[in-house]
């Protein structure tokens, strides 16, 4: 246990040094007096109707940064998300093909009815969070994370049988996830393709019209701000996150015997 002791004392020394440095003003004023220049630029431009060649048409600055000003960052983070879910599914790839014949009754009737009501409420909150993401705090990531609590509850309370009876199969969820990710990619290059076809100039990840490229997503729907591509990005990200997490949950909540089948034949060289 000497190793642990050395490591713990090293951590204590580092913490004390950091505490002393922070207390004596090593990080400057805490909290700082004002935000950085780049932040005030974003805040000023996000819904500035006077400068429509630089705006994002969204009164919510966080969503505007996530999907417009720094949209490429988020696109590649979505790729990381795709890869992580794919890796988790690959480790248990044979489980999806094994049908579970043992039906579980789930929990008691009271719990089932309460869960049914709560699930509807969760889905409604998730949808409103995702679809209003360009107006109020929220967006695709938040909506997807909230929505994926609902299938988790259903799997625990009703059992996996519930999903099979309602024909919510593995391959359908996989199709929803792949289709929404493909549409996400398509939304980012849609104006570019339109520009090629019509002879105008456009950028990848273009949302609103710029000075040299006049193509644009619609900034308003009737008289409500739509945020241009932000609405579509939020919608597709919502579907991708919710269906991706649901896929992993259906795998992880399988029965123990089904999961062990994955390791069959490993003693013959795995």
């Amino acid at each position, binding site marked *: 246990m000497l190793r*642990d002791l050395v490591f713990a004392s090293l951590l204590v020394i580092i913490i004390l040094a950091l505490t002393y440095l*922070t207390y004596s003003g090593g990080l400057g*004023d*805490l909290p700082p007096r004002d935000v950085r220049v780049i932040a005030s630029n974003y805040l000023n431009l996000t819904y500035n109707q006077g400068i429509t060649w630089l705006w994002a048409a969204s009164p919510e600055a966080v969503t505007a940064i996530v999907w417009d000003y720094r949209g490429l960052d988020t696109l590649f983070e979505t790729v990381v998300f795709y890869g992580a879910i794919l890796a988790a599914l690959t480790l248990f790839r044979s489980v999806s093909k094994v049908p579970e014949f043992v039906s579980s009754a789930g929990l008691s009737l009271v719990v089932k009815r309460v869960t049914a009501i709560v699930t509807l409420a969760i889905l409604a909150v998730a949808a409103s969070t995702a679809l209003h993401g360009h107006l109020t705090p929220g967006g695709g990531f938040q909506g997807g994370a909230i929505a994926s609590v609902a299938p988790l509850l259903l799997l625990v309370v009703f059992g996996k049988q519930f999903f099979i009876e309602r024909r919510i199969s593995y391959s359908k969820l996989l199709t929803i996830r792949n289709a929404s990710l493909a549409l996400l990619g398509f939304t980012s290059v849609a104006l570019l393709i339109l520009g090629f076809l019509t002879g105008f100039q456009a950028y990848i990840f273009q949302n609103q019209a710029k000075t040299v490229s006049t193509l644009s997503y619609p900034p308003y729907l009737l008289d409500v701000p739509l945020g241009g591509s932000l609405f579509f990005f939020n919608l597709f990200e919502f579907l991708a996150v919710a269906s991706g997490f649901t896929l*992993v949950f259906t795998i992880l909540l399988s029965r123990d015997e089904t999961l062990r089948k994955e390791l069959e034949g490993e003693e013959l060289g795995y």
Partner: protein
Amino acid sequence: MDIELIKFMFMLTTISLYFNVAISLYGVVSKTNLVKKLIALTIFQDTVNMFTILIGYKLWRPGLLLQPPVLTDLSPTSETLREFVERSVDPLPQAFVLTAVVIGLAVTLFLTTIILHVSYHFKTVNVDEIGRSKRVYIHEEAV
């Protein structure tokens, strides 16, 4: 409002987060159970995200009312916009942390499946025992 109290409490929050980083790193490195390592790792991840949010905060001053970076007026004049820029906190760290939390969950689910595989394969999740059994196996191979 008491500026000194505000500064002290903010510094207290920062220093508590240093302690959280230290404790969770200790848990990741020196605990032998893989599930315990996973729990400590999620705490570490959340604490680092919290540091990022702390960067974007700014000081309350008399006559200044802070607000989240959401514009509530749908037809803003230049006066409204100036007030919004003055009052709002930094939206950039929030945008980074937002994606980091969801991707962190996806990576954690991947780690969960790996730990399940390890537990089925070795019948234990204790890294010391796993190391010992592998050493025995290598010794048998060599003989």
